């Protein structure tokens, strides 16, 4: 008996089952494909099946052999009908006998999926309106696809690249995770049917995206407006030197499609803003915050809370990080239960300023991927109403209770009424050369730490070294409210934050050097 056969006669499931009878098998799974009365909105009356028999038999037998080896099952068989079939007739039968049910289900699913993808079978549909049409087997669609090398379509207006799997895409072998009794076939199907929005394709986003793609999450939305930089590569393993300068979301989508061609990855080449937040969050059943700044993190949190969807959030700093899962869908706490007010960017360093070792976001991204899978698969032990702190230098962790705040304990979070636009203070930032600023009467204040200043001192103009922590501690007492100050740091993030704080304390003559010394040097080079 061959593992794969065609039949021109009606199939007899009972006889087929008997052909696999085995006293050592404790589980027997079957799949039956029936002729349906509808396809893509058209009513179907009957079907004709045709096959390239010689090739189809070889390929079909190969699939059944693969399934037996892969899943270690005792017996497997697939029979496909040919010729004319009426509505409700049995078109294809798959049976698998195995020691245990998990492998039986998995192998059965594998066989029917692969047969649909790979075996050259054509189906002619006869519609109720008298019309008829041939429906290609999926492999034939792939062959047609390969002729033109467009794996994706650009939609320039929306800044999106839509990457659809090739028609004959094969899925990875999920058996290692399906063997887990908490996952199984039902869990695998749940993953395939799920959609996740990932904000940020950086140090956190790379592991999150890789593991979710590998696990078979059916749709991934990658939101990132940045381009790949050489300084990203030590902590963002989806990217290579050859990708430098390309949009991160686009490169990530390519790599993920290669990793798992059976999923759909949609790249959104845009920052996550208060304008697009609600629309993007609506695309998934959960959102994962992998961004690198406070403004975006609070925006993700707020948009998720407003949409009533879980948000898996992580943030890192040098050798440590924090993990939190907002559960507005289940009466759980959110970021604002801990921090009612969004922290200003620049108050606490980002990766560029504070530095980071690659495995730190790597670990936290993995934790995020794990929490996301726990949510999607409804696994126990989910992080909720808690925050996890991990210090990778000291190898210490703290898991702290973080319940809902009193303000939203009774219902919706009262702290979030809408999405806040990014805070911008008009006229705060100046794009000058330092000499121009000094000549215009600005006192130049270098906010950098002593080590940074020593490595790259400011020599062009007279300036005051006043590290940010000390300045904020000593202001406003030690500043002259009538004097104009230009605050300077390396990238312009700290100086903007400090200027905002000082303005809030009543010093209206404080400004920030836009883009920091890095941008000032570029302006200098461009001008000379």
């Amino acid at each position: 008996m061959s593992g794969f056969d065609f039949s021109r006669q009606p199939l007899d499931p009972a006889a087929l089952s008997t052909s696999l009878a085995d006293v050592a098998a404790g589980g027997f799974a079957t799949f039956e494909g029936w002729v349906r009365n509808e396809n893509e909105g058209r009513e179907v009356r009957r079907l004709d099946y045709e096959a390239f028999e010689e090739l189809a038999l070889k390929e079909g037998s190969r699939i059944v052999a693969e399934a037996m080896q892969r899943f270690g099952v005792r017996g497997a068989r697939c029979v496909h009908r040919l010729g004319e079939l009426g509505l409700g007739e049995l078109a294809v039968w798959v049976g698998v006998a195995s020691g245990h049910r998990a492998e039986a289900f998995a192998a059965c699913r594998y066989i029917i999926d692969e047969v649909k993808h790979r075996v050259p079978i054509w189906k002619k549909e006869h519609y109720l309106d008298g019309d008829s049409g041939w429906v290609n087997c999926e492999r034939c669609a792939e062959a047609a696809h390969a002729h033109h090398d467009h794996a994706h379509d650009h939609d320039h207006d929306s800044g999106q690249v839509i990457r659809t799997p090739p028609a004959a895409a094969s899925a990875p072998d999920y058996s290692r995770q399906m063997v887990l009794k908490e996952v199984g076939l039902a869990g695998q199907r749940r993953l395939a049917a799920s959609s996740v929005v990932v904000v940020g394709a950086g140090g956190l986003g790379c592991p999150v995206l890789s593991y979710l793609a590998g696990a078979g999450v059916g749709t991934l939305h990658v939101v990132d407006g940045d381009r790949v930089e050489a300084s990203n590569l030590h902590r963002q393993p989806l990217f290579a030197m050859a990708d430098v300068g390309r949009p991160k979301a686009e490169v990530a989508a390519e790599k993920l499609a290669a990793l798992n061609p059976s999923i759909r990855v949609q790249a959104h080449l845009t920052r996550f803003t208060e304008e697009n937040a609600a629309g993007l969050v609506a695309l998934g059943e959960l959102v994962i915050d992998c961004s690198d700044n406070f403004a975006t993190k609070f925006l993700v949190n707020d948009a998720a809370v407003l949409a009533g969807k879980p948000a898996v959030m992580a943030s890192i700093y040098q050798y440590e990080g924090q993990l939190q899962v907002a559960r507005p869908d289940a009466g759980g706490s959110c970021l604002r239960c801990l921090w009612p007010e969004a922290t200003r960017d620049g108050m606490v360093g980002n990766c560029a300023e504070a530095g980071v070792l690659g495995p730190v976001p790597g670990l936290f991204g993995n934790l995020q991927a794990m929490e996301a899978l726990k949510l999607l698969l409804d696994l126990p032990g989910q992080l909720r109403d808690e925050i996890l702190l991990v210090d990778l230098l000291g190898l210490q962790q703290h898991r702290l209770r973080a319940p809902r705040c009193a303000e939203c304990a009774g219902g919706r979070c009262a702290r979030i009424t809408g999405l806040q636009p990014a805070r911008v203070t008009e006229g705060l930032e100046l794009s000058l050369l330092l000499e121009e600023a000094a000549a215009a009467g600005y006192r130049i204040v270098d906010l950098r730490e002593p080590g940074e200043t020593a490595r790259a001192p400011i020599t062009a103009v007279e300036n005051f070294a006043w590290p940010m922590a000390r300045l904020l501690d000593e202001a406003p007492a030690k500043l002259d409210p009538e004097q104009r100050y230009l605050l300077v740091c390396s990238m312009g993030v700290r100086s903007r934050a400090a200027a905002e704080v000082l303005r809030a304390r009543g010093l209206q003559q404080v400004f920030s050097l836009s883009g920091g010394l890095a941008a000032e040097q570029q302006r200098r080079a461009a001008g000379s």
Partner: protein
Amino acid sequence: MPMIRLKYYALLREQAGCGEERLETAARDPAALYDELARRHGFSLPQAQLKVAVNAEFSDWSRPLADGDEVVFIPPVAGG
């Protein structure tokens, strides 16, 4: 005076120059303790931006401190 065990995270760890320390203090609550430490270590973050946990539970800034308490100051972080 009570002896308090302190743990610092992120920017506070950096500004304190250590991840943990023990301190004999007259501070009666976390708010007073943070004031004292901010002066000593030059902490730049205002207290309002921080969370404090005492003995692994988030706590009020006015909770009385006792000998042997473990106090953790947690700043928000944003890297990714």
